[in-house]
């Protein structure tokens, strides 16, 4: 008797699950390779979200499944993973990937198959201008143009008249050079030097000398990871006393470790989630950011969060309500039609509060962030305990 009951129960469960086919979402992130320090928190965040959503009954009563593939920070692998997710796994939408070049490479594939994609990479070109192909592509991280605004405004407020730029001689540094120089021109700040260095360089004395010869009021260093420590150290060693700005690419604990005390006083723009506990109480995304960090740290350890995981959280914050609305309009069995409806619903995103800002998409804007909520100015300080930390300097609301 008992056996029969167990059997019936199993049958029932099986039938129940069969009716409740999971909503499959494809995820491509760079969990290994040079971009791993960004990709790992993104992957962790999505793993966390998947557990949480399914524990609370899924989306519209259906479980969600993230099919996660690591692209090893490589464009070819990212494109291959995208094809696999679309053809073999028949995913409804794709989140990813971490880096700009690979995200650009994925556009053709998703546009051809008609699958909506939410990228986690920074560059504006991923979603702009919205054309036949980019119709299918959305993204969550702030662009260099948006992050330049707080820097330039902070410079203007600090009385800076002339500024110099030194950045990576790659896409990141060039993107920042263009964005910063345009924003500075608008604000009436003169850019008196624009220098480049390589991530692998062991000396930047020549570039720094050129900057010092022009004696700017402030210097912006456009790099990510820990390599931007070198120009900053060289500037200080050569006696530069002006303001030093970095970009949000250095908002990681390794940068503080390698740079040490010479970083004190450095200013950088960052997503508000970096200083979630210092945001003013009425800051619109304070609550979301705080709860995200608490959940992340509860699962992966205190101090483990970074701003990058927040981009993945925001991608789901946009996708989830869009999925719910699309499910009311179309069957997922009708895959091509469902993907089309889902794309329209993502584009119809209004007032979604994420960790990095408030998203308002439109047919011409597939990012939908304003820098006012999406960026804050942060200063590196030494806490009374003798540790370096990020301190909120200014918000732009």
């Amino acid at each position, binding site marked *: 008797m008992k056996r029969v009951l167990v059997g019936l129960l199993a049958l029932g469960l099986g039938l129940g699950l069969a009716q409740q086919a999971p909503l499959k979402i494809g995820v491509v992130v760079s969990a290994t390779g040079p971009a791993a320090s960004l990709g790992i928190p993104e992957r962790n965040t999505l793993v966390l979200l998947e557990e949480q959503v399914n524990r609370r009954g899924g989306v519209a009563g259906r479980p969600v499944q993230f099919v996660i593939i690591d692209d090893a920070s490589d464009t070819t692998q990212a494109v291959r993973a995208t094809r696999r997710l679309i053809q073999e796994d028949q995913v409804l939408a794709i989140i990813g990937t971490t880096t700009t070049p690979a995200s650009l490479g994925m556009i053709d594939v998703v546009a051809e198959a008609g699958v909506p994609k939410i990228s986690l990479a920074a560059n504006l070109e991923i979603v702009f201008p919205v054309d036949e192909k980019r119709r299918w592509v959305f993204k969550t991280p702030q662009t260099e143009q948006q992050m330049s605004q707080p820097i330039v405004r902070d410079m203007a407020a600090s009385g800076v008249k002339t500024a110099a730029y030194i950045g990576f001689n790659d896409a990141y540094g060039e993107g920042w050079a263009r964005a910063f120089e345009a924003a500075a021109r608008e604000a009436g700040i003169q850019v008196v030097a624009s220098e480049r*260095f390589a991530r692998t360089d062991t000396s930047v004395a020549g570039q720094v000398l050129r900057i010092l010869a022009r004696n700017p009021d402030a210097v912006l260093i456009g790099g990510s*990871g820990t390599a931007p420590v070198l120009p900053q150290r060289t500037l200080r060693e050569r006696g530069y006393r002006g303001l030093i700005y970095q970009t949000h690419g250095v908002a990681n604990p390794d940068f503080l470790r390698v740079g040490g005390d010479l970083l004190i006083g450095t200013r950088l723009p960052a997503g508000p989630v970096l200083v979630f506990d210092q945001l003013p109480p009425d800051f619109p995304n304070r609550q979301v950011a705080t709860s995200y960090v608490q959940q992340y740290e509860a699962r992966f350890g205190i101090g483990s969060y970074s701003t990058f995981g927040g981009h993945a959280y925001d991608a789901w914050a946009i996708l989830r309500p869009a999925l719910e609305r699309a499910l009311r309009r179309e069957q997922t069995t009708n895959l091509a039609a469902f993907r089309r409806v889902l794309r329209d619903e993502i584009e119809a995103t209004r007032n979604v509060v994420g960790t990095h800002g408030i998203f308002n998409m439109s047919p011409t804007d597939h990012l939908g962030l304003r820098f006012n909520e999406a960026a804050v100015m942060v200063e590196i300080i030494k806490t009374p305990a003798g540790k370096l930390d990020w301190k909120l300097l200014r918000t732009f609301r």
Partner: protein
Amino acid sequence: MDWTILSFLTADALQNGTIYALLALSLVLVFAVTRVILVPLGEFLVYAPLTYVWFLPAEVSGLNLQGQIPGTAWLAAAMLLWWAILDRTNLRRAGLLALSALGVLGLAWWGAQGVPLWLGWLLAILVVLPIGPASYRLFFEPAKNASVLTYLIIAVGLHFAFMGLGLVFFGPEQFRLPAILGGQTTIGLVPVNNQAFLVYGFALLAMVGLYLFFTRSIYGKALRACAVNRYGARLLGISPSQAGYVSFGIATLIACVSGMLLAPLISPAYFQGFLLGLKGFVAGILGGLISYPLAVVGALLVGAMESWASFQASAYKDAIVFALLLPILLWRSLQSQELGEED
């Protein structure tokens, strides 16, 4: 460009050029004796300071490594053990090699337990040092009498392997190391890091040491004999293998010490060795990979070019330095017919 800027640039050129000179000397030494272009030398240069990071107390390194043994120690021990297995017919030598494999692990364990800074400094060099000679035994000696090109291909392969291992052992980020001599001294108008004087001191010491070694000691003379004519040297009872171990050992030692002295100035990471090694190689080429004084001159020239280029057109710095190679290679190939040919 005025005098102030020129003197600043010269100081920078001297610091970089000295490191390239040390690497160029090592490359010339190894090439002369074994016909190997030791591409992975730059990896040895960063291995030593990165290993040192693992021996630093947590409050200095800012990391919590909990007494982990650095990956380089496992690598060195594994290579020594492999060497012992290859030389198993010579029981005494095999035994010694196996013992030194254990010794390396022991030293690394000791270092990771927390030792004074100076002791950790020495231990890091001792741990990395065996990787050099062992590379010769494991990867180059089996290809006896191969062409320069074959050796070069093996060396490039080793470079990729060691760089990849560096990423596995130490992770993708840079590290901060304590300087032996902190602070700066102003000479004329130019502030120079005191640590840089140690680099200059070591470079002088290495050059004088090498000179004395080659002119006064029997080992040095044997190496020179090997460099001049390997066949003849063998007839006189000089073992080419031993000459190989000694030259690889000296080159690795110079690279390791240079790396340790340079590290506080650059925040080392696994990927930084290659470019330093490559510029040392360019300098060595200027001397045709046979002349030590010309290699040093070449290194200073590369350093000067680099400083000048980074001031004038920073986006094209490396392009300018490596473009320097082309006219010089052309000139050298017109000058000599048989550069680095076999026997």
